[in-house]
């Protein structure tokens, strides 16, 4: 319980900081929208093909905006030796991991809640009734992304060129999530239900659970003074 309480406090601190500065959220949101425009011009899709491409395009947009968020994730701690101070405090490092994962999760979900409907409007899609299912898949995928992203962003924290290194390390590891979310969403858009995509959902769920556990257990070894 102490773990959850500590994570909650840390998350609250970060959210408050974010609300005051609005750096990450605004840039991520703007970048996500911008990507929709770029995709629209680069593919120039016929209306009937849009639904086929939508999952892949959406997930590319989320991957890129998410990476942008991850690059900023430990930024407040890098300034004024805040990280050292945090590590000196009697906090469970697992709580730091949970808080940072949740922070990125909250930011990405806010962006996704706006970007998905925007995509439907910009690309003239009619299947509004399927959005809840698509959000569920996106949520599961985003959890996986944030969990693994927080671990990789912590291990690249002290590297040279860390913004460039982060996606190089993270993206290959994210392949199960990318495949699972896109296939799931395709199936939902095509048939209107999860049906054949249930195994993919299970895969997503196991990914989330495995790396969430690993993250909590391993994080005190990841971040050191």
């Amino acid at each position: 319980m102490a773990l959850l309480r500590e994570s909650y406090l840390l998350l609250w601190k970060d959210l408050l900081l974010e609300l005051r500065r609005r750096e990450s959220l605004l840039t991520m949101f703007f970048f996500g929208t911008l990507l929709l425009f770029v995709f629209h011009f680069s593919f120039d899709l016929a209306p009937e093909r849009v639904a086929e491409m939508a999952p892949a395009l959406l997930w590319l947009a989320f991957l890129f905006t998410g990476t942008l968020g991850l690059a900023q994730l430990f930024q407040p701690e890098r300034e004024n030796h805040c990280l050292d101070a945090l590590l000196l405090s009697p906090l469970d490092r697992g709580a730091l991991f949970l808080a940072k994962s949740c922070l990125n999760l909250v930011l990405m979900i806010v962006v996704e809640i706006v970007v998905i409907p925007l995509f439907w409007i910009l690309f003239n899609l009619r299947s509004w009734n399927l959005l809840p299912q698509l959000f569920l898949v996106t949520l599961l995928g985003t959890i996986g992304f944030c969990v693994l992203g927080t671990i990789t962003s912590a291990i690249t924290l002290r590297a040279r060129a860390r913004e460039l290194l982060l996606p190089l390390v993270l993206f290959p590891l994210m392949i199960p999530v990318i495949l699972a979310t896109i296939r799931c969403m395709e199936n939902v858009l095509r048939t209107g239900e999860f049906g054949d995509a249930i195994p993919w959902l299970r895969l997503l769920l196991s990914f989330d659970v495995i790396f969430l556990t690993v993250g909590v257990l391993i994080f005190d070894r990841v971040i050191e003074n």
Partner: protein
Amino acid sequence: MAQVAIKKRKGILGALAFVAVAIGLFWSLVIAPPDAYQGDVQRIMYLHLPSILTAYLSYFLVFIGSGMYLWKREKRDDLLAHSAAEIGVLFTALTIIEGSIWGRPTWGVWWTWDARLTLTAILLLIYVGYLMLRSLIEDENRAASAAAVLGIIGFLDIPLIHMSVYWWRTLHQPPSILRPDKAPWENVHPAMLTALAISFVGFLLLYFYLLSMRYRLGEMREEIRARRLDRGA
């Protein structure tokens, strides 16, 4: 004196590896019959299978070394993980190249997005990332911990990647030796199995020879650094 003994043992290991690989090559190129359907092209399997198996062994050692390092903080475990990762990347790259050479005459293409090919390519990307991560962190202890974490999550990710790319698509040769319906000695010519077994032993010996050399190289680097520090002080 101990150093000389170690050197000697390594020499023996190297010689054994050389002999085993040579016998394996002779067996697979000369003694084993050509494949009934694929002809001589199939002979590349005698290299292909041992390469990928040693690569997997390598990544398993990275995982073990990383776990041990995070637990005990012993320099040698990190050195083991680092050495294994480098050689693993080498063998994975070899596997892909051999597969390409085989794929061109058999499938008609150098590359195809089949499940096992994709998995192998992703493995290569993950462990090249591992090596890059190491090289981009200055502080050695930090680099070691960061790499150890990646060595662990990378290995844990392999089954998930495996499953996902499998469901995504499968076109690869169904396993031709470990088939569910027949024992290996019933459907494969015995000379083929022997060639494969010898090749595999040869690759294992070669692998451990390279690993020990790479490990020693790391130790020597460490010694040089320690001596430089001594002189500086």
